[in-house]
């Protein structure tokens, strides 16, 4: 596990989702990356029933990179409380179905996973319900746990195969945590940040 940066790859006209993944696959393979299976990050969103008071939202996220864990992020007003639990947490959410219910379609990112030297690259096509929404690229630099120490390196690596779409600044979620020890929940929060943008977008982005 190392610092992970999640980056949106904008869709262009006349290139479909699978074509975009194919296009990026060729580029990372040209760099020397080897495909090591598939990955999946999915998110179910639950909303509190009205009689519980102010509306609260629970995002329950699974990441194939951490298959024994369930990540839950509770949004209550301005606060966000993370919880890392083992797999049976999903059973508990089923028990709470009368208090917290699924109101939104499931959103997920899935696609090929690659390894190249110290990096792990994932090309995810994002779907909400049945609808394709866009492409997310995840890069993990595995030897390092502090974002400020490796952001420049990761950015350069990302630019190497994504080109100019890579911004000069880290993702907003990471910006406030550049000197902290990176944890798996930080990857989950970056996905939630991106998923929220996809939910807002009407078409692909």
């Amino acid at each position, binding site marked *: 596990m190392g610092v992970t940066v999640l980056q949106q790859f904008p869709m262009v006209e006349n290139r479909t989702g699978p074509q975009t993944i194919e296009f990026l696959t060729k580029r990372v393979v040209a760099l020397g990356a080897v495909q090591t*299976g598939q990955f999946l990050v*999915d998110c179910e969103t639950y909303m509190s029933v009205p009689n519980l008071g102010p509306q609260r939202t629970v995002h329950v996220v699974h990441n194939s990179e951490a298959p024994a864990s369930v990540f839950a992020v509770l949004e209550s007003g301005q606060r966000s409380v993370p919880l890392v639990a083992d797999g049976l947490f999903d059973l508990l959410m089923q028990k709470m179905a009368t*208090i917290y219910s699924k109101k939104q379609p499931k959103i997920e990112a899935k696609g090929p996973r690659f390894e190249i030297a110290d990096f792990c690259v994932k090309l995810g096509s994002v779907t909400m319900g049945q609808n394709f929404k866009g492409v997310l690229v995840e890069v993990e630099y595995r030897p390092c746990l502090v974002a400020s120490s490796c952001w420049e390196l990761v950015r350069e690596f990302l630019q190497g195969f994504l080109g100019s779409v890579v911004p000069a600044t880290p993702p907003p979620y990471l910006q406030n945590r550049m000197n902290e020890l990176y944890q798996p929940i930080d990857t989950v929060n970056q996905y939630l940040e991106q998923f929220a943008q996809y939910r807002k977008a009407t078409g692909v982005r």
Partner: protein
Amino acid sequence: MIENVSQPVSTATESLNAARNIIPNQEYLLQGSVMDSAVEVLLHRLRGLCDNVDSGPEPFYDHEMCFSIRGAGSMQPLLLRVRRALDYQDMPWQLRYIGQPEIGDKSRPTIVRNSIDIGTSATVVEFLTELGCRMDFEYIVRGYMFRKGRMKITVSKIFKSGQGKPLDNMEALSQSYLVELSVLAPSGQDAIAEDMRSFAEQLRPLVQLEKVDCKRLQHVP
């Protein structure tokens, strides 16, 4: 083994459904108590009967908080418990759902209740509070755990929760020890309840382990 790189990853829901028959979600339970003055005799007996003969009983020292959350209208509240080890502060916290206990008739040897045990991060109390749960009560529990096959036996004393008091100066809730015999098993393994009944027999008359109906205790005026 040749790894098939194009094989899709199964979703967490698929894996959970595949494992549904082996997830231990039923707790079989018998409870009893002994006076402080008699606990040494019981511990001695358990030391002889149980599996962990060489290592001796395993001490534990936990803080438990009991939460409830209410859904729509007249629904039964959902009960959740959070436990953490005070003697191993780096260990994961434990979140536990406990369903309504089924007492059953005389032919059923133990209480059976639904139970989901989940290891979690230390943020669980804040998470539950923000979720809308209310903490009903909390306590400190200190004692010993024994194992006999799949059975777990705990002998523990319950203390009023700290409230800033030094932990070695805690006030005990009673002059007795709680004794619990339990097994966590997947559904449909009722045979284990018979094993528990015969084990409980071996502890008589030091302690009488019974199906304690907590609901009836609550309704005593």
